[in-house]
């Protein structure tokens, strides 16, 4: 194993996962000297009754829930952030709990920023004003689909992104009661994002052993639990395992930045309005196949994570990189049982592929060429591996 000449690594959030994890919330708050959290969650989760379990977790503690702010849909916008920040101030809250994923967490980060820094707008931060001090404690309780940005220092509100270390959530509390999925489509989309992030971490050009160590369990858990979870989305064990994988992969991506797949899928999602998870789910199997043919072999680590020590050791050493890619592609193909099989099936116009490829190559800043992107898109369009 080669150690790179230099690297930087940070896994900021604490992870608490498993049986009774929710009941640790009062202690976690107490550890940050907080007694009155504002809970931010989505309409869908409130309707599904998940908030009830959250409220129960605070029984027999001294924590008063300042309010449960639950009108969030699938978009994080400044007006809701402002409302919630006002609620935060009115009730004298001292911490934020985000119950959910994606926009809920983005909104919670924004609320935290507005409330801690006592501002009405995010504009100064878009313009580059640095965030002054440490913000209030932010705890995330993942539930429902993820966008891969939860455990990173980035937040996207009104389609604009701010990145700052102050935005890292402090704790992730993963509990089977919250992480089991309601439907297979959401689950597959989240898994596609997790897979892309972990895959990027393990195949990046300048590897760091710590990023490997963080992405390894993400990929291993995905390989083990994706099939059972797709078969039965409500499965608690599998749901918890995938949620663990999602947090780890997201935290890994905070160290690696986006790879080819994320950039390409983001460009595609922008151009077509299809959600990021679906785009990734369609692109991954074809893109992985493309990497296989490139002359630079991927590292053995990918194979180790996906195959496990036993099978990895049994393979002949020169086969490991290729087998790693095959296993990754096979995992991505499992998603196709739920997600659309091709871009054509999603009614994406063929003429869109060219501009998407170019945008992606531009954003990728030399990491890959427009030709590579175009090849992947074309194959994904026709579903031609």
């Amino acid at each position: 194993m080669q150690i790179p000449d230099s690297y930087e690594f940070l896994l900021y959030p604490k992870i608490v996962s498993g049986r009774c994890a929710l009941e640790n919330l009062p202690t976690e708050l107490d550890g940050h000297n907080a007694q009155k959290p504002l809970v931010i969650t989505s309409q869908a989760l409130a309707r599904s009754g998940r908030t009830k379990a959250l409220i129960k977790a605070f029984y027999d503690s001294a924590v008063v829930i300042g309010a449960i702010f639950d009108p969030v849909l699938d978009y994080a916008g400044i007006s809701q952030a402002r409302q919630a920040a006002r609620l935060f101030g009115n009730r004298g809250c001292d911490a934020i709990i985000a119950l959910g994923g994606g926009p809920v967490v983005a909104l919670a980060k924004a609320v935290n920023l507005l409330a801690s820094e006592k501002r009405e707008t995010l504009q100064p931060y878009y313009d580059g004003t640095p965030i002054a001090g440490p913000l209030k404690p932010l705890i995330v309780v993942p539930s429902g689909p993820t966008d891969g940005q939860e455990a990173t220092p980035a937040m996207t509100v009104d389609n604009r992104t701010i990145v700052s270390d102050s935005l890292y959530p402090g704790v992730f509390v993963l509990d089977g009661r919250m992480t089991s999925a309601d439907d297979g489509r959401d689950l597959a989309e989240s898994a596609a994002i997790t897979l892309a992030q972990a895959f990027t971490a393990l195949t990046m050009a300048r590897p760091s052993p710590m990023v490997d160590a963080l992405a390894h369990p993400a990929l291993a858990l995905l390989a083990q639990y994706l099939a059972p979870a797709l078969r039965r989305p409500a499965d608690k064990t599998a749901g918890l395992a995938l949620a663990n994988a999602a947090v780890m992969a997201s935290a890994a991506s905070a160290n690696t930045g986006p790879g080819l797949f994320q950039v390409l899928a983001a460009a595609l999602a922008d151009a077509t309005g299809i959600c990021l998870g679906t785009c990734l789910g369609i692109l991954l199997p074809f893109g992985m196949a493309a990497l296989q043919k490139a002359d630079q072999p991927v590292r053995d680590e990918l194979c180790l994570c996906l195959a496990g020590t036993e099978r990895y050791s049994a393979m002949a050493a020169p086969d490991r990189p290729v087998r790693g890619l095959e296993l990754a592609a096979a995992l991505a193909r499992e998603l196709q049982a739920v997600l659309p099989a091709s871009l054509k099936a999603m009614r994406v116009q063929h003429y869109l592929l060219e501009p998407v490829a170019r945008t992606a190559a531009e954003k990728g800043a030399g990491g890959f060429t427009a030709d590579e992107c175009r090849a992947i898109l074309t194959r994904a369009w026709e579903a031609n591996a």
Partner: protein
Amino acid sequence: MLLPSFYDFCCRVRTLSGIDTLEQIPRQLARLRAAHPMIVSDKGVGAAGLIDKVVQAMGDGLKIGAVYDQVPVDSDYKVVDDAAKVYRRNGCDAIIAIGGGSVIDTAKGINIVVSLGGDSLLAYEGFGAVNRRLRPLVVVPTTAGTGSEMTLVAVIADPDRKIKMLFPSYFILPDLAVIDPRMTQTLPDFLTASTAMDAMTHACEAYFCLEKNPLSDSFALRAIRLISQHLLEVVKNPGDLNGRLALANASAMAGIAFSNSMVGMVHNLGHTVGALCHVPHGVAMSIFLPYGLAYNLGKAADPIGELLFPLAGPEVFAATPKKERPAKVIAHIRRMNEDLHAATGGKHPRCLKEVTGRDGSQLVPRSLLPAIAEATLLDGARLTNPEEMLPADALPVLEHAWEGTPLGR
């Protein structure tokens, strides 16, 4: 990969690793809004020229507020209080700790006092006393072993009460760990060997003890692989910077693993012989590790067998049937100790009777073993060991470890 029914994991230390990372400290401190750090270190580190090296590398990027290099080997709270006064007198706003375990723990203690106020560390003893963000703390480890740069506990002695006080809190975690092989380059061979075996023990125990979890497993596995690939090479060839970097990385990763999964009986025994007979920690670890593995075979044979993969590589792993793997793991560690013994010209002891003090006298008289066994009961590491270990169980282990004979079951 098995997801445990419950786990938690936290290591919010920004890690910089590489052959030129010392130079980046000023930039990182600026990011933490500090510009006036106090350097905490000990005489040995200073004498080896390491403080100068760090200061030089940092250049004019920042003004050093004070240098406190009086940390003794067994640091206590009085040192902490003393250093805190120096920090305040010079108006410092951050700490850079340069040294091994004792220095790092002392720096953590100083940080508690200067951040939370008061005159003495004693006010913050106990769980939950440290519950606020502390001042920036940068750690530059000079041994590749203790992993203290990644742990969330400070262990500081109280000489009056003759106890070790624990200060566990997530806020104690350093903000930045700087892993630069220039810092461990001059470490003598036998210290390189024993400190690396300490890291090896952290990783192994993290892998088979009760609090193991997917993340700690992953970090532990990589740490073990790095140590077994590089240790002997570095001991034979001390100038090998790449190897040094690998060992320092391994030490940090083992630190991350055991800080989140705790250690077991090897540390239990090690802490006890350390306290009673002053056996250096790393030495005790390398001696007890094979016994800790053997003792836990009943409860943890599977994870112990899996250690063969990072230790001996995939080929040996595949060629060994599952049932024989645990025995081979133990044999492998014993082999490593033998090799290190040979490579250091006998300075790396293989059993307790070979451990000698500065004057060449035996540190652990055989007659003391029953007392040591009795005292093991008082150590917290006992709790996270998979197999119960009572004094009556510890005694035969100690006797075998004294003689250097394998533990029969």
